[in-house]
């Protein structure tokens, strides 16, 4: 397991709030190889963002409990001091958030924001940092980078801002880039530009990428493996093709069926998942998806299913009453 860049084992992140204990991430284990792209898919409240922030060591330290283990390039993140984390953020892991404006300082020229990272983390001098910043801006496809170096974030479009954020994240050549909904809120044409950019940067810089999204379309062609999360837990994990064509878990199927498709004739009735994602502070005793699942049996309501292996290697799912192994081929793309 030494070739694994990231090994997450039984990770739990629990919030303590006035209204109760919220297990946002409830025991998650997975690993990630070098130069691999992993997709994490889930609806709001599935814990995907909390998971990412925990791996980043970004969670606040009050009213929160993190247990389990996150080994990033052999270094433990859970319980690491802020000083250690700072060191890791410099060279090991970086994050791109959904709203570029939250990670850019609106009153600071974009060049300075990249410079700053380089000078503080890598100890570059002003001139070298400037040259590197412009190189980075060029690399993420910002036209006339020299001029844009002096622009303020508000002067750029959403897509350009996200490119700047990616440039900032890549400044110290991290081994792992976590992109949390990097294209949500961007236009379709810009969305594919950004995703293609991430893809080519991954190859170019030999890094691994975790792509977190609610949109199955985003991860369909750009990941090698996918994790489907529901209510803070992994419900299915496997190679991208297996998830789309040979999924076993009922929720994965329902998620695929409920998203509208361009290929459908108009007025196609959408398959609907009844209800809403569960309230994390009052989770049902059995399978978390059971209350919304049309195929739930008595066992599903009583006992929580654990991850079990499917036919292909690395493909696991948590379901008492799974879809048959081979009959769902092609169904998801109806």
């Amino acid at each position, binding site marked *: 397991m030494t070739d694994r860049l990231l090994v997450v084992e039984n990770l739990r992140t629990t919030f303590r709030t006035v209204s109760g204990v919220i297990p946002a991430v409830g025991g998650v284990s997975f690993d990630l190889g070098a130069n691999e792209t992993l997709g994490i898919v889930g609806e709001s409240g599935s814990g995907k963002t909390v998971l990412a922030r925990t791996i980043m060591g970004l969670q606040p330290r009050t009213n929160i409990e993190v247990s389990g283990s996150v080994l990033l390039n052999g270094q433990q993140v859970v319980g690491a001091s802020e000083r250690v984390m700072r060191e890791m953020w410099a060279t090991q892991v970086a994050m791109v958030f959904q709203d570029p404006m939250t990670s850019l300082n609106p009153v600071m020229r974009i060049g300075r924001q990249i410079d700053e990272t380089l000078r503080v983390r890598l100890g570059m001098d002003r001139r070298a940092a400037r040259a590197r910043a412009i190189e980075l801006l060029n690399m993420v496809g910002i036209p006339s980078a020299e001029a844009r170096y002096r622009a303020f974030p508000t002067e750029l479009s959403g897509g350009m801002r996200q490119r700047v954020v990616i440039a900032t994240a890549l400044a110290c050549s991290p081994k792992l880039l976590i992109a949390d909904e990097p294209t949500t809120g961007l236009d379709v044409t810009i969305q594919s530009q950004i995703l293609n950019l991430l893809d080519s940067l991954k190859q170019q810089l030999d890094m691994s990428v975790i792509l977190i999204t609610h949109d199955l379309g985003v991860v369909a062609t750009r990941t090698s493996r996918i994790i489907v999360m529901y209510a803070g837990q992994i419900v299915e994990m496997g190679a991208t093709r297996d998830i789309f064509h040979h999924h076993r878990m009922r929720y994965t199927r329902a998620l695929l069926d409920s998203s509208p498709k361009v290929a459908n004739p108009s007025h196609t009735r959408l398959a*609907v998942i009844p209800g809403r994602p569960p309230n994390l502070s009052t989770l049902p005793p059995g399978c978390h998806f059971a209350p919304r699942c049309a195929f739930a049996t008595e066992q599903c309501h009583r006992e929580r299913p654990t991850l079990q292996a499917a036919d292909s290697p690395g493909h696991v799912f948590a379901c008492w009453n799974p879809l048959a192994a081979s009959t769902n081929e092609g169904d998801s793309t109806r």
Partner: protein
Amino acid sequence: MSDVIDEPTVLTPLRGKRLGPLFWVCVGWLALNVLAAILANFLPLIDPLFQNYNVINAGPSLHHLLGTDDLGRDILSRIVFGSRVSLAVGSGAMLIGFGVGMPLGMLAAYRRGRFDSILTAVMYVLLAFPAIIAVIAVISFWTPRTLLKIIIVIGLASVPLVYRVIRGATLAVATKDYVIAAQVQGCTDRRILFRELLPNIAPIAVSFLLIGVATVVTLEGALAFLGLSVNPPTPSWGNMINESRTVMAQNPWLVIFPSLALCLFLLCLNFIGDRLRSYFDVTEVKL
């Protein structure tokens, strides 16, 4: 055909927001002040103007709970009667300030356009002018000084401030989709102002009102200190403190008690205003 649709499970409502016991202590103290001021004539108090030369500059005693001043007048009685002036100025001036400033601020923020630009420009010019000097100037020259005139002058001087706060609060609400939705449903402007905007700016208005009253009470004290409030011998908290300056060395009670009354009153108002604001702030509820 019929889908099993979303079974609404209501999100966690207000998460244990409480006003707290201190809030109610403050409310109680204010209520006591107001009641005493209203019922002063019926309370078993010594006439605040009665001069008892046998007990001059006396400390607190059973007969004079808070002592007497340099003319032998009962301090407790003068504080209670003096609160009438402070309360009248505070509430009266704010009534005028809000009566004029609030509708203007709401209308300007809701209507926008030229009405808003002109009105806001005028208000900002007024704000730029030091209000306290204007108030002092007007009060000094508009003789004879009466309580009503003081109230009117301070009230008008507070209009630009109220306008600015209310306009800002309304602007934040007026751009929300539910206001547009109300327009789209064919609601009249008046209906939108009262049913959609007012309930949402009311908490801000109330807390600002309380803080405004506190400010005006302080202002009255300052005017009295300059000898520009109600004419002696009518007591007010401000002119009691003012008069006591000369005899502070002999009788410290004379400055301590009115100051304490003023201080507690202001503290309570500010605390209540602040608590109400955060209590009614629904945006804080969202997780």
